[in-house]
């Protein structure tokens, strides 16, 4: 009983002591120190997810018992270095513009023989249940990391690539859902914040778009796992109170096309690490 009482007192004291910490200037300094600490690649757990992705990538898997080493990400089968930096792009075999993750779906179904339903059954690990990253998340992290240091440079030659960019830009500004939101609501002005989170201006600030896009996929400390661009696109739409944006859907790829073109020229810095 006495201990419990002491515990309460200690808690009250701790709360009192914590109050002066609410000073905002102090918080900003701390936030920057925190961000700086996240730059340490050797301390980035995303590298371990990429390592797991490499094992999965090279292992014979699926009904056809074949590895993903024959998968063409745009620079030729098995050529991974710099491939992610040039996505999304048009692929002749699927006749679609694909980002990294929709390309993985194509290869896992066409090459390895998985059914699409199986691949799409669970694409994101659930951080609220303390799960690990899914296989497709780990593979995406691995493939993306092979473009570390290479400038984002998605092609814009094929008519469908041009269309994806145009539609992606239009989608960015399309308001819908019960909140009347579009991406623009949060991401079209400099220096804005939602709650305490700084927001990037991806509509007209190239530096903002570059700083964000060069660090995806990223290890999200608050989720305790790697997050990919497909997850980020889904997340924004979910927060906008919309239905689930389907993994690898043409809308998600178009948005990623738009954002990738906005960020063109930035050297990828992978795996990223964010709060």
């Amino acid at each position, binding site marked *: 009983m006495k201990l419990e009482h002491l515990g309460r007192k200690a808690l009250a004291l701790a709360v009192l002591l914590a109050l002066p910490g609410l000073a905002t200037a102090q918080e900003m300094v701390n936030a920057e120190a925190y961000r700086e600490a996240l730059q340490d690649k050797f301390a980035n757990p995303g590298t371990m997810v990429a390592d797991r992705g490499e094992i999965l990538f090279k292992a014979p898997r699926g009904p056809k018992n074949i590895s993903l080493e024959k998968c063409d990400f745009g620079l030729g089968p098995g050529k991974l270095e710099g491939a992610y930096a040039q996505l999304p792009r048009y692929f002749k075999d699927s006749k679609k513009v694909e980002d990294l993750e929709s390309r993985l779906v194509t290869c896992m179904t066409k090459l390895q023989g998985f059914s699409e339903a199986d691949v799409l059954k669970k694409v994101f690990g659930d951080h609220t249940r303390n799960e690990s990253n899914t296989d497709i998340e780990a593979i995406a992290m691995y493939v993306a990391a092979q473009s570390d240091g290479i400038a984002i440079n998605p092609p814009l030659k094929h008519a469908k690539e041009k269309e994806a960019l145009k539609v992606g830009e239009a989608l960015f500004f399309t308001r819908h859902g019960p909140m009347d939101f579009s991406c623009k*609501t949060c991401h079209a002005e400099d220096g804005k914040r939602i709650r305490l989170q700084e927001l990037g201006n991806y509509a007209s600030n190239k530096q903002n778009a570059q700083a964000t896009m060069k660090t995806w996929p990223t290890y999200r400390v608050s989720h305790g796992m790697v997050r990919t661009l497909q997850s980020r696109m889904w997340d924004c739409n979910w927060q906008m109170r919309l239905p689930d944006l389907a993994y690898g*859907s043409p809308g998600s790829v*178009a948005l990623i096309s738009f954002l990738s073109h906005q960020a063109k020229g930035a050297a990828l810095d992978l795996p990223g690490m964010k709060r």
Partner: protein
Amino acid sequence: MKFKYPLLLAAVTLAANGAAFADKPVVNTKLKAEIDKIIALSFPAGENQDLSRLKQDDTIQACNQYRDNVPEKMAAAIIERETKNIKYPADGKLMGDWKIGQKYYTMGFAYRIGTVEPDKADKDRGGNCYACHAADPKEVAYGTIGPGLTGYGKLRGASDDIVKYTYDKIYNAQAFTACSQMPRLGHNGILTPEKIAHITAFLVSPDSPVNK
């Protein structure tokens, strides 16, 4: 050729000032059809997917067509239509309890659907107002997407007109500004009229921390 650049400059200046109304849609019929098709393909039907949420009403369609910068006549039509949409609490009281309003000003994580991470359907909904607008000086985690509202009632007083304006603005921001970035919280069913009256009190009441 000679006139090309001065004209372009003039256009840029007007747009930057925000004074000019658009006269040509940014999204033409062809592009709209393309976007609609992509949206339909990207949000498939299924368990807990409420596709009716994707439906754009006349106002949002107009805003999308002109990327929120609608022509003057259309802006007037939006304001007229959205004003008519406003509904009031059954007891007619637009000034509720600021303490309850404080709760709903901050609360916001509900109403998310889908299968990945849905909220419980009956989870009590707040306005999540602080995510965009500062108000209570003790709240440090406020966002800055909308204007700060600290001292809102202190500045404006608590007259019937101010109370009604505040209620109406929260219920339907587009009754005042066509294509306002603020959600139409009452009209879209995020908040009930009673909750809006409580939030109104939180902003207007002299006893509320917003005005201390």
